[in-house]
């Protein structure tokens, strides 16, 4: 696979950006201040929650995109096990890293929300909070497993299994507020119940759009870093073999000719 990236004189890419990612990055750079403006200036305070309601514009989008990111990891993992394709493994890995960041942000912003709203930073018995923490830890485990030395295929296969298993928790986290209504302080979905309106709804939508752009932008860059890294690894193996043969003084072309002539392998 070849990317349209910035290339140095030796023909090797020295950045992961391309025209499309730079455009995406520009949209993001322009979108974030607009979101901040809507979140802090144009959108109204809530009658009971006051300014704490503004956390909606970050907390809900990052939660949604952590589900999506881990869902993409599961999809990449399934396709890797099926097709054994490095592309899918790199996709799963990249998405898991971004998902962990988004899920971490979900936990932090949720905790900041909880103090003024619920009167507590954290509740260990709360179903929504604990299942979200478990989801976060599962994908930390996924990333840790990828750091364990192994051949690329073994590493990808192990990670794919954990990636698929970890995703089982996503519907539990998402539906926990409905399934265990009396076991969580967390509210049910405002959006599906039609309980957001006017500028609050618009700003929430803008926030979701901005975090969607952020996810896509990060995903493309992280995928490219992962792909180039695996290319480098593959290049490293090839180079090592060639180096070893060179040390032994083997003429690879002559050897290839010999094998074609039916000589000993």
């Amino acid at each position: 696979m070849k990317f349209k990236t910035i290339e140095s004189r030796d023909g090797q890419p020295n950045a992961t950006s391309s025209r499309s990612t730079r455009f995406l990055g520009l949209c993001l750079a322009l979108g974030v201040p607009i979101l901040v403006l809507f979140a802090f200036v144009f959108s109204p305070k809530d009658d009971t929650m006051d300014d704490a309601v503004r956390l909606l514009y970050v907390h809900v989008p990052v939660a949604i995109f952590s589900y999506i990111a881990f869902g993409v990891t599961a999809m990449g993992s399934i396709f890797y096990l099926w097709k054994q394709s490095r592309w899918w493994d790199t996709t799963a890995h990249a998405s898991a890293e971004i998902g962990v960041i988004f899920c971490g942000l979900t936990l932090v912003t949720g905790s900041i929300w909880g103090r003024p709203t619920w009167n507590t930073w954290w509740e260990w018995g709360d179903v929504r909070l604990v299942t979200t923490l478990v989801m976060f830890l599962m994908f930390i485990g996924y990333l840790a497993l990828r750091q364990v030395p192994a051949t690329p295929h073994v590493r990808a296969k192990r990670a794919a299994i954990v990636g698929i298993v970890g995703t089982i928790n996503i519907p539990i986290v998402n539906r926990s507020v409905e399934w265990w209504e009396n076991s969580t302080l967390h509210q049910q979905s405002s959006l599906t119940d039609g309980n957001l309106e006017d500028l609050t709804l618009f700003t929430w939508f803008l926030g979701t759009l901005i975090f969607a752009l952020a996810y896509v932008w990060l995903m493309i860059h992280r995928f490219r870093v992962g792909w180039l890294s695996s290319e480098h690894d593959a290049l490293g193996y090839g180079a090592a073999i060639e180096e070893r043969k060179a040390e032994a003084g083997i003429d690879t072309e002559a050897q290839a000719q010999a094998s074609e002539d039916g000589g000993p392998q």
Partner: protein
Amino acid sequence: MNEGESSIDLTPRVTTKSSLPRWIPGLVLLAVALTIIGLVWFLATNSQSFLEADQAVAEREQLGDKRFQLLGSPISSAGPEQTLIIGEAEYTFFTITFDDVYVDVVSQGTPPDLFDQGVPVVLEGRWESGPLPSKDYVFLGGANDGWWFAADRILVKHDNDYRKDRIDDAENRGQPDKSPDS
């Protein structure tokens, strides 16, 4: 084997040993499996469960002095006349309701900022009977049946409604405006 290959040094090279032992992947997989088991166990047995006020009243005898979490909506906001300093401790007196069943509450400390009429709360504490910390106190519109809930923690279970008209809507439906069963 040709001449070229016979000259290859087949002695394994000394490689830098990985700092991570080989059993690490097994350990990670075990941790994942234990996490799943722990999650199922937590969801099945150990997660908190709020008792709604009507349920808590019905099960009062069985609950005895067991500590539990009580869910209901205050029938009024906490005014200054409801907060009393007795000895060195500050107590707040209020009543919550769920499905038209009322429970009188005596809570230690000041209620949280979002404590308000109709906003569902989760109280941690236990049933008490007999005289209140302030013996002559009467709960306005409360149960006043000799039983009260001694709470030492108030959590607010905020609803998911952020519409401007929600308070008017709730008032039109009749108070308490945002009871958990509405």
